[in-house]
């Protein structure tokens, strides 16, 4: 187990390095840069921008240096000082913006992940045990819809329904009076009352997929001999299912955390834009459009890095639960 943990953790270093290169290159792709639009704005305001001024600005933002130097500098400052650079548009350290936005993204993503599993496992078991029953059909239909409805559309429809029929606005994470208030019990309660919308919207697709996986593996297990044996020795049906079949059927759906988590983070980014949540998504889009490269690069990098680390953690958890995995991997 220890060697498995070590190997997987060491593999993170090249992975994260590759990720940092990829994000930096992607962020640098657009023609022109923040300065181009900045200068255009200045000129539109009637400020005359001289050649020297442009050069000075380029130097200040290190835009006169080649790509690899800027990359090396950026990475070094993150590793050495935890400094993610400066947001040009917000004129703030990127780190501050990250600390402001990232926790909400993480709260939503992690709660969505937990809810996805808490819902998918029992529903999957129910659907398999009561195959072709009324409830099974209902869940299968919901499952297929969950796969086909893009999360942003679901967010729009929910907003529409609540706005039109209940006169409620369900966007945001806080009511207006709590938006800038300091943390206290009331604000926390307010957050909880807003949190369920993004969790349902983001979690819908993943839950639908997991229900289908859980249902099909459970069906496979239920037809196996050991289940018959358990029944024939007089074990109550409830324990046959929970202690025998479900125990085995649960492994495949835990092992797909690897693609559930990235999908949730992806979905969160776009749902946050629609629902106007104070998370990373809207700011990422904004910074991409403004070519605020250190901001967008750092957001993209930390979002992906956290997803990769989350996947690693769940893999380790799985290896701890199911020894077969770590033996397979060490072969």
């Amino acid at each position, binding site marked *: 187990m220890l060697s498995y943990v070590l190997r997987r953790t060491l593999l993170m270093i090249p992975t994260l390095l590759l990720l940092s290169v990829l*994000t930096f290159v992607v962020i640098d792709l657009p023609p022109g840069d923040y300065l181009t639009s900045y200068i255009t704005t200045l000129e539109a305001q009637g400020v005359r921008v001289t050649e020297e001024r442009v050069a000075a600005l380029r130097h200040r933002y290190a835009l006169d240096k080649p790509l690899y130097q800027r990359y090396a500098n950026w990475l070094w400052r993150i590793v050495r000082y935890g400094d993610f650079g400066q947001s040009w548009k917000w004129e703030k350290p990127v780190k501050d913006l990250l600390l402001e936005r990232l926790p909400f993204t993480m709260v939503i993503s992690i709660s969505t992940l937990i809810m996805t599993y808490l819902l998918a496992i029992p529903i999957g078991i129910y659907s398999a045990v009561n195959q072709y029953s009324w409830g099974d059909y209902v869940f299968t239909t919901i499952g297929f819809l969950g796969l086909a409805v893009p999360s942003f559309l679901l967010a729009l429809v929910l907003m529409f329904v609540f706005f039109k029929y209940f006169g409620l606005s369900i966007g945001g994470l806080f009511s207006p009076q709590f938006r800038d208030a300091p943390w206290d019990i009331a604000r926390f309660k307010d957050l909880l009352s807003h949190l369920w919308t993004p969790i349902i919207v983001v979690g819908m697709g993943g839950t639908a997929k997991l229900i289908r996986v859980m249902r099909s593996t459970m069906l496979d297990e239920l037809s196996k001999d050991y289940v018959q044996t358990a029944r024939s020795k007089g074990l109550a049906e409830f324990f046959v299912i929970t202690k025998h079949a479900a125990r085995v059927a649960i492994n495949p759906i835990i092992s797909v955390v690897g693609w559930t988590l990235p999908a949730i983070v992806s979905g969160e980014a776009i749902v946050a834009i629609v629902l106007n949540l104070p998370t990373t998504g809207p700011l990422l889009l904004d910074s991409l459009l403004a070519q605020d490269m250190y901001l967008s690069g750092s957001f993209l990098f930390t979002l992906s890095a956290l997803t990769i680390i989350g996947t690693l953690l769940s893999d380790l958890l799985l290896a701890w639960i199911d020894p077969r995995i770590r033996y397979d991997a060490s072969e």
Partner: protein
Amino acid sequence: METTKQTTELTHLDMGTEPYEELETESLSQWELMWRQFRRHRLAMAGSVVLILFYLVALSAGFVATQDPVQRNAKYAYTPPQLPKFIDAEGKFHMRPFVYGLTQETDPDTWEKVYVVDHTVQHPLKLFVRGTPYKWFGLFQSNVHLFGVEGNAPFFLLGTDALGRDMFSRIIHGAQISLSIGLIGVFISLILGLAIGGLSGLLGGTVDIVIQRLIEFLISIPHIPFWMALSAALPASWSAIKTYFAITVLLSLLSWTEVARVVRGKFLSLRETDFVAASISMGGSNWWVIFKHLIPNFLSYVLVTVSLTIPGMILGETSLSFLGIGLRPPAISWGVLLQQAQNMRTVALRPWLLLPGLFVVIAVLAFNFVGDGLRDAADPYAD
């Protein structure tokens, strides 16, 4: 078990032209067996019908659409959908469906323009009516439409947008981009996946390890933020066609991994089979083995993967265009049409602006059903 079956299958294929047959009783080809299996999956059949219909409509968009999709009718901005009726206001039944005329009035309180259904005017719906001219495949000029009302009477089946453009016609034309982007994108992913997965499975060793790590890496990063970044990098000055292809390419950049995994897995397992060993020992070259034995054997699995990749791409394009960083107006796609549904105040009063979303959902659902059916049919020898 599987090996022996595949061997018989292959000898059957190879000796198809020989005068003798091994089995007299049943000599259905692999594809015929698959078709048989596929037909049993009712949802998949329904999905196929829907998809064929959608693509036919997309191909003949000008013919099916009742109006010119870019024609602005300032007089009829935000007209609600006019659903065809069979029974009129007096309860009389009409064999031919009709729509009522519209008159515009100003609300005395709010000064907003409202549309009042004019019960005195009936416009019957007819098939093959003459209307706005369009070009079929950019070649044949025509002005015959599948259905519509005669003359210049307003007929907006699914309502109009802020500029009075007909939503129905726009959705039909949007299908062209939204439905084709998945096909072209999946084609690029397929080529990438076949090449990279094949290389990985064939060469093995370090190349295999590196490619596998790369695939794991690409799967573990969240796709939409990266698509957003790549898509935002596309210059706004690009023409619609250029942006369209750029979006397709960047959607496929992260979507080839599944195909590559399937191809590699099948390469590895088929390499060990007797019939491949036999072919090699009889002097079959690498290319012979690949094209004659390997590819026909895993093509069905690749097809399944591909059919399940398309909906993801459709959703990707829709999401990006919805955010305003994918395709931009005047290009028409379902995502572009959904952009105007971003403002809740607008949508609350004009819910028909959400309708393009319904078409996205139907298309994605149909692809999922077909993919499901294909998965069941991919291995017709199972059971």
